[in-house]
């Protein structure tokens, strides 16, 4: 058993195929391999090796619509958020980096409390995550980067299992950024992450004690689940409305587009499950 584990780890961390993807990263890192947001090329290589293994063998991801991602230039990638931990961001990122239609090295905006968590904060920034501050996002769009934003925040990622695939309230910050910076929005529907870590309750007093926004009651187990990611067609919004109500209406257009992609993903998963059952028979 120990030997088998050793072989898997060797296989993961000696995988040289990820090297070709590292060339995708724009040459914005300094002499020590870091960029201004803490992205670190050395950590990224190791992370990609691990993500590749998880992407292909554990989550068995199937990504559709990657041709909708602009090959270059600024864009905002807006997925639904789920799964308690930021694995969904990791998988979306890997899809973009390995896209056969033109690879993109995305940055992902993450919860503001994450930098306060030992190891997690550093690890996330070393692989391209950036705290969800509009100043950061604006600068990255100015750098013509692809930026992943989860407008649901913790409301989405840490929702209870019983609310799975129900989109939570969207913040409107991403819409302001898209309009102000003339960035197309690519809606994304992710199916399969809700089932990986299931939250049965939010332990609010404990969360308050530890200064965390949520404290989900979960089983310490990562359920295997096949993941379907659907990238939708780019949506452009002109910078021509000023009232918050108009912005909210536009946010709802994106929300609706994500809902449609989720429906597509759920249908695909149902067909997949049926196929698996028949195979077993």
């Amino acid at each position, binding site marked *: 058993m120990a030997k088998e584990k050793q072989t898997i780890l060797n296989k993961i961390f000696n995988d040289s195929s990820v090297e070709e993807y590292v060339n995708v990263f724009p040459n914005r890192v300094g002499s020590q391999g870091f960029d*201004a947001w*803490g992205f670190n090329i050395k950590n990224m290589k190791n992370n990609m090796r691990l993500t590749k293994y998880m992407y292909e063998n554990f989550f068995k991801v199937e990504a559709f619509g990657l041709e909708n991602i602009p090959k270059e230039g600024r864009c905002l990638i807006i997925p639904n958020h789920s799964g308690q931990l930021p694995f969904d961001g990791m998988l979306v990122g890997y899809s973009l980096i390995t896209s056969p239609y033109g690879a993109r090295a995305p940055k992902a905006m993450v919860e503001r409390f994450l930098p306060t968590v*030992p190891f997690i*904060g550093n690890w996330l920034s070393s692989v391209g995550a950036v705290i969800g501050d509009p100043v950061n996002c604006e*600068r990255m769009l100015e750098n013509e980067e692809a930026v992943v934003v989860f407008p649901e925040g913790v409301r989405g990622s840490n929702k209870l299992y019983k609310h799975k695939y129900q989109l939570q309230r969207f913040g409107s910050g991403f819409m302001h950024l898209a309009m102000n910076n003339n960035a197309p929005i690519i809606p994304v529907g992710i199916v399969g992450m809700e089932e990986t870590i299931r939250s049965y309750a939010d332990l609010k007093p404990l969360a308050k004690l530890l200064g965390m926004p949520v404290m989900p009651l979960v089983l310490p187990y990562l359920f295997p689940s096949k993941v379907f990611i659907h990238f939708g067609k780019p949506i452009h919004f002109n910078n021509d409305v000023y009232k918050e109500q108009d912005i909210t209406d536009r946010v709802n257009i994106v929300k609706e587009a994500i809902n449609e992609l989720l429906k597509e993903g759920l249908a695909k998963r149902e067909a997949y499950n049926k196929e698996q059952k028949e195979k077993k028979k």
Partner: protein
Amino acid sequence: MEPKKKILVTGAAGALAKKVIDKLKKDYKIVAVDFRTKVDLGIPVESYKVDFNKRLFEDIFREHDFDGIIHLGRISAMELNRFTRYNANVVGTRKLFDLARKYNVPKTLVMSTYFVYGASAYNPSLLDETTPLKASELTMDLVDSVELENLSSIYLYKHPELNITVLRPCNIAGPGVRNTFSMLLSEKRSPVLWGFSPLMQFIHIDDMRDAICTAFEKNIPGVYNVAPDDYIGFQDAIKASGSKTIQIPSIPPSFTERIARFLKWKSFPPYLINYFKYPVIIDGSLFAKTFDFKPKKTLSDIFTYYKSLK
């Protein structure tokens, strides 16, 4: 031949001031002052030990007709108590500005620090000069640094004839520098917080000297960050300097603070704990563009120097 212009350099006992004086002394007559000691800087440099808040300080202005002031004299948070520091750094600087007005000194350069921005988990990266200064929200020990900045800004706009330039550098490092983070690079074992390696910027003391001299001579008043666009995680910097790390527990935060108070290490002061946790990355592009400045020394040069000490 035109007589040499005369400038006042404060904080003359510091390593950076010595470098600045050394560079400028062939073109200027230098008068050096320090509150700590009368510094021997060689024959062409007149040197005084003086407290800015004493009346004697004005005698220096009466005696010399200054063409500029480079104000590097600041008591760091590692030295003396809060009250004395506030008096020296804030009240003393006000005295300096008032004397500069009274004796028509046409330009003043003030040295600040990136600490004024405050280390917070919510900081975006590449803070520009308009970012609010939040250090005093985190600790009372940095109130004087923030107040010194505010005072400089008030004089900058209220008294444009002073032509004030404020520089906010990132961590200065290199031979002779004794600030907290440069000391950590020079030690054999340096404390770090378990699970945290904030991104940092370092500028070599020689580059900082050049930045000060250029900003003083070109004199384009305003507030400027001074930092290279090159970065490294703190724990990586410690390792690159040939030091080993001492991992200090980082949670809960109150426990970390208690440890820092108990240890009383100069290189791990309780008021800087957040700087061991969260990055404060500043955007030095305005300074680089305005003064056509590019650091000559790389991060590797800095770490190689510290490695050679071990």
